[in-house]
Every structure is written in C-alpha cells, then in structure tokens.
C-alpha cells in the first residue's frame, strides 16, 4: 500500500492516514500499537511484528476528551485522547504511552482506564538526561517494554529481530535526511507541506514499504532552485494543523532546519547497529537527540542548538511553534525569546491549537512577518 506512492499520494495519505493504516493492518493481519510523542523506541514495537503508529492529534471536534481533561490541558493531549476515544480507537490493538510531564502522566492513566480491553503500557522516560542514572533508567525501561510486549503478544524477540528493525528505521531516517538536505539546498523542489507529510507518514506507515516510496521519490526528484524563498528555522515540539505548512509555502518560507519532535529531532541519533546488544544501542540513541522541553532542563542549551542550526543553515529567521497550554513550553519560552532577541535574530511565535480550523489569524501574522523580513522593519 505504501511502497509506490508519489509525493501527492503521500500528502493525501498524511492528511488522514488512519483509513489506510486500518486497511493495511487488516490486509496484513497485523496488530497496530499507537504511541503519543515522544521517544518511545518504535524499533522495539516493530521488532515484535506490530505496526508502531505515532498518534498526532485530530482536527475533528472534541466530544469526549473535555470531560476527562480540562480546557487548560495541553491541546495535543486532549486531541490525542479524542482521536482514540471518538474516532480511531478501533484501529489500535494497543498503546505504549510515554510519560514526560504531568499531563502525559495523567493521560496514560486516563487512557488505560478508558480502554480496559486494550493493551496499554506506560513508557516512563527519564526527566533528566545528564547523569549516569538516566542511561541506566532508559535501558531498564526498554527492557521492561520488551517484557511487557512479550507478555501481551506471547512472542519473544531476538537481537537479530531488533537489529533488523533498527536497520529499517535507520534507512528511513537516512532517506528523510537526504530529502531534507535537498529541500534545504534547492528551495521549491520539495514544499514544506510535502516534506512534513513524508515525515508524518514515516512515523505512521510500515517503513519496509514506505522506504521504497521515499527512495524512488528521492532518486527521481528534479531539483529546482527557485528564488525569493526565505529560509527559516522551525522551533518547538509539533506543528499542527498541517495547513500551516501550506501557509509557509504560500509565503515562500523554506524550512531549512527544525527542532520538532515530529521533525528533525525524530531523525537525530541514528541507532548504531549492534549485533551484541541492540538495547544498549537504542539506549545510547535516546541521548543523541536534541532538546525536548519536558525532559531537558536547560534553555541555554536549547538556544545554543537553535543558534547553531540558524548559523549552519544561514537561515533568516526563527518561527517558534507554541502548542496552546503546553506548560513546559510556556515556562521556557520567555527566557528563550529573550536569548533569541539578544542575538537580534528575527523571531515569530506561532500559537497553535489542535482543533483550530480557521487559520486566518496565523496567515495574517505570518504575512506581516514575511513582509518585515522582505524589506520592512521588524
């Protein structure tokens, strides 16, 4: 299903991936395991023969989630819960839910209580990364996840199974990185919307199939070198709804780097293949990924990361994507803004909310930002 898609097909699938996932799982007789972001080692789930699917919210109306999570809860958390409760719950045989903040901690509990007949496991990511105990704990959690999936499925996996899965995921990331490089160097060859659709579907489709599509697309790309693009860095956790990428395209912003959990951060830290101990390799990978507000405690490091990316890519500006009611971002943002402004880097903060259907305010503000970059003053 996903092995010979064109870029246009990918954009279409990514818009609403769930019918295709449902059909694929039925045709293949495979179980689907959903995970919210971030950092669940999907390679482990895949090694068991399940399809790991990143749950990335819905733009459909909230019906059940508001009675379980109040309106000041992170909009992504509420949207994910709604997706599972009202729209796509039947698709999933189980869930592995990472806990990285107060909201995700409660979300795991609420999810488990509301899906008593499904497999629901928590992945207790460490909320510190700089001490040896963090590494110790990541390894323990990966081992616990393997034991839990094994208990649920009645299967066991070998190092070879895990290595094969890692290789497939590495391949996916390597192709996406090449595509990102092309996008960076040849603006207009791949639009923002197209690239982030490829990213999204990579986190949701079977990589054994999808990698083939990506490879063919990459090999057949006709490079363009359009002028008038403004290179920008996208900073944040996620960027939704996907129509925002269309606005970037309309305004001729080319995203040349990002720190999104669903973007470049997903591609960071290719897992070293290890015949001896793939669990150690996956553990190491956890610490190769960049800043993620809930688990990293130093906004200076985040700034340094962003600044390095900004310099390396020769970007003109930074767009920060704020998810409404994400407490972690809201604590970090004022200091981060100050640091960015001190460097006189043009910055635009985009407030996003998962259930937003009208993006006119986003368009207007981005238009003004674009105009200021193209000659006006900030």
């Amino acid at each position: 299903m996903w092995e010979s898609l064109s870029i246009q097909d990918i954009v279409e699938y990514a818009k609403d991936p769930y019918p295709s996932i449902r059909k694929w799982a039925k045709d293949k007789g495979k179980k689907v395991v959903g995970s919210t972001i971030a950092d669940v080692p999907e390679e482990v789930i895949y090694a068991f023969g399940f399809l790991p699917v990143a749950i990335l919210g819905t733009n459909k109306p909230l019906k059940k989630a508001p009675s379980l999570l109040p309106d000041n809860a992170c909009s992504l958390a509420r949207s994910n819960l709604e997706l599972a409760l009202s729209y796509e719950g039947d698709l999933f045989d189980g869930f592995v839910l990472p806990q990285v903040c107060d909201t995700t901690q409660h979300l795991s509990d609420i999810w488990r209580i509301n899906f008593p007949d499904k497999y629901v496991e928590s992945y207790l990511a460490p909320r510190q990364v700089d001490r040896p105990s963090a590494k110790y704990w990541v390894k323990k959690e990966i081992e616990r996840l393997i034991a839990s999936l094994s208990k649920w499925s009645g299967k066991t996996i070998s190092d070879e199974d895990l290595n094969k899965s890692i290789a497939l995921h590495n391949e996916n990331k390597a192709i996406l990185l090449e595509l990102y490089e092309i996008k960076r160097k040849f603006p207009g060859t791949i639009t923002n919307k197209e690239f982030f659709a490829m990213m999204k579907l990579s986190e949701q489709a079977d990589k054994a199939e999808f990698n083939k599509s990506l490879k063919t697309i990459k090999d057949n790309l006709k490079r363009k070198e359009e002028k008038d693009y403004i290179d920008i860095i996208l900073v944040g956790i996620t960027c939704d709804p996907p129509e925002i990428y269309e606005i970037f395209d309309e305004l001729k912003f080319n995203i040349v780097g990002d720190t999104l959990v669903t973007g470049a951060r997903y591609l960071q830290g290719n897992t070293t293949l290890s015949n001896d101990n793939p669990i150690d390799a996956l553990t190491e990978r956890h610490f190769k990924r960049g800043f993620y507000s809930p688990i990293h405690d130093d906004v200076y490091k985040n700034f340094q990361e962003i600044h390095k990316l900004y310099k390396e890519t020769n970007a003109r500006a930074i767009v920060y994507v704020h998810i409404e009611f994400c407490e972690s971002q809201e604590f970090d943002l004022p200091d981060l803004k100050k640091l960015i402004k001190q460097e006189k880097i043009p910055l635009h903060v985009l407030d996003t909310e998962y259930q937003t259907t009208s993006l006119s305010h986003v368009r207007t503000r981005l238009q003004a930002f674009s105009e200021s970059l193209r000659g006006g003053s900030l």
Partner: protein
Amino acid sequence: MSEKLTSKQLSKKITDEYMEEAFHAHDLGKLIGYSTAISPVELFVAHDIIPIYPENHAVANLTAKKGAEMCSITENMGYTSHLCAYARSDLAYRQTGMTVTKGIPDADLFLACNAQCFTLTKWFQILARKGNTPLFVFDTPEHIMDKKAREEIVKYCVVQMKELISFLETVTKKKFDYDRLKEVMKYSAASSILYKKFLDMAQYKPSPISIFDALIGMAIAVYRRGTPECVEYYQTLCDEFQAKVDQGIGVVQNEKYRLYWENLPVWFKFSDHAKLLGSYGAVILTSLYVHAWSLDFDLDKDPLVTLAENYVNRFSNSTIEDRADMAMDLFDKYSMNGMIMFMNRSCKAVSFAVPTLKDMLTKRTGIPALVFESDMGDQRFYAESQVRTRIEAYFETLDRLRT
C-alpha cells in the same frame, strides 16, 4: 521551657528560629537549598543545608490575596496565566520584591523532585538560570501498579539519591555523613507518625479537626521534618487535639456533613470556606494533599531505600486508580458522607486526575460530588456567587438524600 508552649506558640517559635537561621545561613557556614515540598529533604537536613520552600512563601502571599496582582506582574514578563499561581507569584516576587512576609533568602542550590509535580521543576529551572545556581532534578517515574516495575523505580531513585549526595558534596565541599542521616530519619519517622495521628483525629465524631487545622498544622512537617523540634511540635499538637476529643469538642456544633476535599485549598478563601461550610453543619475533614507528608519510614531499611519508597508513592505520583484507593481508605476511616472536588487551574498535576477520580469515588461511595473550578491563588479565576450557589445546591442534594 518549650514544653509549656501551645502548639501555636511552638509553631511560631520554630518558624521564627528557622527563618532567622535561614537569613543568616552564610554567616553560620550553611547553604540554602530550595526544595519542592515533597522531596527527600532529609538529605539536606543531614548535610546542614537549610531547606527553603518557595511554595510556602507563595502560599503566604496568595492567602493574603496578593495573587491577582502578583500573577499579573509575571504575565507582563511574558508568562501565561495558565501557569501555577505559586510559580507566577514567586516570579513576581523575584522581579519586584513584593511579599507580605520578610521574603526568603536566595538559593545556593536547587532540588526539584517531580513526585510532586513537573511544574516545580520548570519553575526551579527558571530560578536556577537566573542565579546561575546548580539544580538537581530528582526524577521519580510514576508509581505504576506493576510490582516489579515499582521495585525498579525504587532502585532508580536510590541510584539518583546517591548522585544527589555526590552533588551536595561537590556544592558544599563537605563529606556526607550517613550516620547523621540515620539520626535525621529517626526524627522524620517519629514526626510523621505523630503528624498522621494528628490527621487521624478526623475519625472522631464530632471531628476536632478540619482540613483547615490540617493545612495550618502541616507547615512544620513540610519545612522542619527531620528535626527534634518537629517531633516536639506534633506531640504538642496531638496532645491538644486529644484533649478536644476527650471533651467531645468538635469543629462545628451539630456536625452533619463530614466532607472529603480533593486538591489544594483555595488559599485566599481559606477562612471564608470554613465559615460557609460550618453554617451548613459541614466540616471538611481531609484531603490526600495533607496526607502527602504522612510518611511511613522503615528505620530497619537502608535510609535511601525507605526514602525512595516513600517519596515515589505519594498521592501526586500515584496512578489515578491508586489515588482512588487512597481516598477510599480515608472515606472509610473517617466516615465521610460528602465530597468537594476542586478543579484547580493552577495545579495541573493534581487536577487533571480529578474528573476521573470523581467518577470513581462517586461510584464506589454512592455519594454525589460537588465539583467546582477555580484557582488556588489567582482571584481572577474565582466566581464567588457561583461557588456559593453550588455549595447551597450541593447541601440541598445531600439533605434530600438523607431524608
């Protein structure tokens, strides 16, 4: 001399001496460590680090109705109004010096334990950045219901406590004294037993204690646990309340409703709520929040193990199912016949469990719940008439059910 003091006088004396020492910490060769209220602060005490809790300072300002003004200042600094009012009022204090107390000394180091909440970790990160001060995040994964996982969580926490000890040794350039820790643990264990005994006075009918007594009484457990004066204070408090029990003195006359409260209090409505409920013959007896410092240390175990076991299983780090069980124990023990479920906009860590918890508790007890949404410290989110109307309607419902 201190035997003759009442618990109120003793509390003031302990607090005054504590703050006096804190303000002169550097003269005494000691350091100030900011800590979250639920954290293994026994390690600080054993290492002569004076623990300071910015939350307590925030409570003083919020109770004095400074919340809206202080939170607005912080919002003007770019922080949103959705964040914890403790954090918002504290950031305003840092910016302007505004406080109804003498303030608190600045930190030399920070300990953020997320068994309480993740908010404090983020808040402390801001303060640590500002002062370029070392911060230790003590990560306590949720106390999930799997026995084997719990054992691993405790091991992870013990490893981290050893890292914390190394961190403290580096910052203070002083060797950690494990014998001293054992001594501190004895005091902490003893005061915890007495604190729990004090809270359990709520089982008597009429109850001599309301949650408002508990909230006042818990302060010393929060900032002086691990010291002999803390033990002395709770012994005095227990003696005083035992005397009330012996004389049959209750918080309200003709006690009719014995209520459970979910969440932290609305600090600026503290006494108003007590009076209002009292007028209906109702008394709020307890909450899981005040029981957070009912620690149950096993002195036969390695101190780091019993510390880890206790701090990971606090209500705020437990699953919603376990929280419901904890609350049910209190319902049974204290014979409660009503519940107020406060959706506190400020405290996401506690409040996001409330809708599910409410469903579980009403189902298990058969008692209806009063749910209201507000903020523990920011008056702008408190609608007086709405809360009063709800309380009236709730007692009408309970009356109807009784008849």
